[in-house]
């Protein structure tokens, strides 16, 4: 969804570790914003997955930074201020520190919640748990609200007291998939490639979208 927001001029800054259309190729609005400042300049703060994951971990852990092996020898630290060297106080070894990424709001999608607002998700849950724990407020959209969350293999549960809002949004992961609910809409990702490749096609798509939204 961030390519759409960038194209619509709704994003001032992107903190990211990978900006592609998974399984398809480029994100054209992201590229156009960076290469041509269209529709607006986009400020970027670029990390690796490991670095960004550790920034969420630090925030979820109430720490101002995390330590990792990474970035050394790459050109990323030259362009990203949120990467700093740090020395082990015991061995003297040089490692890398990244600051906590504290979020104002985290929005994630999960499979289920119970009526009390406890959230359950499973499959490849990525950094979703850390994102919620790193955020002051959180909104979790779920496929369904159920009476009871029966225990499941590989499930991650967030208790209701760390979740601010839960909203039932069936199909809310679209065009991605929801494990055990529905498959990925691969056609959509390819269509987005076509729409987003061309500014006019994108603008038409955006205008159509706006018409559907009540003023």
């Amino acid at each position, binding site marked *: 969804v961030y390519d759409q927001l960038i194209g619509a001029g709704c994003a001032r800054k992107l903190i990211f*570790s990978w900006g592609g259309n998974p399984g398809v190729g480029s994100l054209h609005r992201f*590229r156009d914003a960076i290469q041509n400042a269209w529709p607006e300049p986009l400020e970027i703060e670029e990390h690796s997955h490991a670095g960004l*994951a550790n920034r969420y*971990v630090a925030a979820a852990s109430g720490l101002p930074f995390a330590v990792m092996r990474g970035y050394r020898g790459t*050109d990323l630290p030259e362009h990203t201020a949120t990467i700093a060297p740090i020395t082990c106080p015991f061995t003297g070894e040089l490692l890398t520190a990244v600051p906590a990424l504290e979020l104002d709001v985290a929005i994630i999608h999960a499979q289920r919640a119970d009526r009390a607002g406890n959230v359950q998700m499973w499959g*490849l849950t*990525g950094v979703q748990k850390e994102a919620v724990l790193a955020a002051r407020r959180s909104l979790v959209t779920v496929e369904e609200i159920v009476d009871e969350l029966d225990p499941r293999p590989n499930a991650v549960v967030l208790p209701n007291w760390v979740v601010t809002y839960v909203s039932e949004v069936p199909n809310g992961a679209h065009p991605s998939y929801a*494990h055990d609910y529905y498959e990925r809409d691969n056609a959509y990702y390819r269509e987005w490639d076509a729409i987003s490749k061309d500014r006019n096609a994108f603008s038409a798509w955006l205008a159509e979208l706006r018409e559907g939204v009540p003023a």
Partner: protein
Amino acid sequence: MSWTTDEMMSVAAARALPDGASCFVGIGLPSKAANLARRTHAPGLVLIYEAGAIGAKPARLPMSIGDGILAETADVVVSVPEMFNYWLQPGRIEVGFLGAAQIDRFANINTTVIGDDYLHPKVRLPGAGGAPEIAASCGEVVVIVRQTPRSFVEKVDFVTSVGYGSGPGDRERLGLRGRGPVLVITDLGVLEPDPETCELTLTAVHPGVDAAQAREATGWELAVADELRTSPEPTGEELEALRALEASGAPA
């Protein structure tokens, strides 16, 4: 059976993965070759995908690094922070398998920007993903990339993932604990770092390719091994497995 150079590349890359090894797999060409290996000579290959699947055994090609089929078939499913911190970072994973947009003489990889100006690049690429730490921490790295003068450059525009830096000793100086890229497999042949200079050297060509063609497709003065091998042709079994795999999922 006839075959394309891309097929030859996937087959050669698959062959490079030893059975039973743990292999951190990037999406696209690496994922295709790794799944081919698992279907041919290396049924015990442990496929590890950065989204959190360890020991994935997908029945079709995954559409993305986070494809649900990876979690369904994995021995272990972990969070992304755990994947990078507990599994990749300590050097537990034997082989890292990467693609590249640009690769240079010292096997440094660029997947960030084409052009000299990071903030105003000619082409903005997707970026790092898991690659920098895969290149740093896996026991060794295998790279799969099509060989052209645009992708094989003297010096990458941006070092996203470190190969041998500017030459011997750089990895040690930087504290990178894996051995680095040991094989670069292309649609023309195979390159390996020279044991002395770390410079990528053509050590094999695929059937029908000669060293001159590989030199032409390389943006630096390509060194060629004294004993240049020729890759064995893809077998019928390999081609069948590869084509079945490609028919099953998304194009790489």
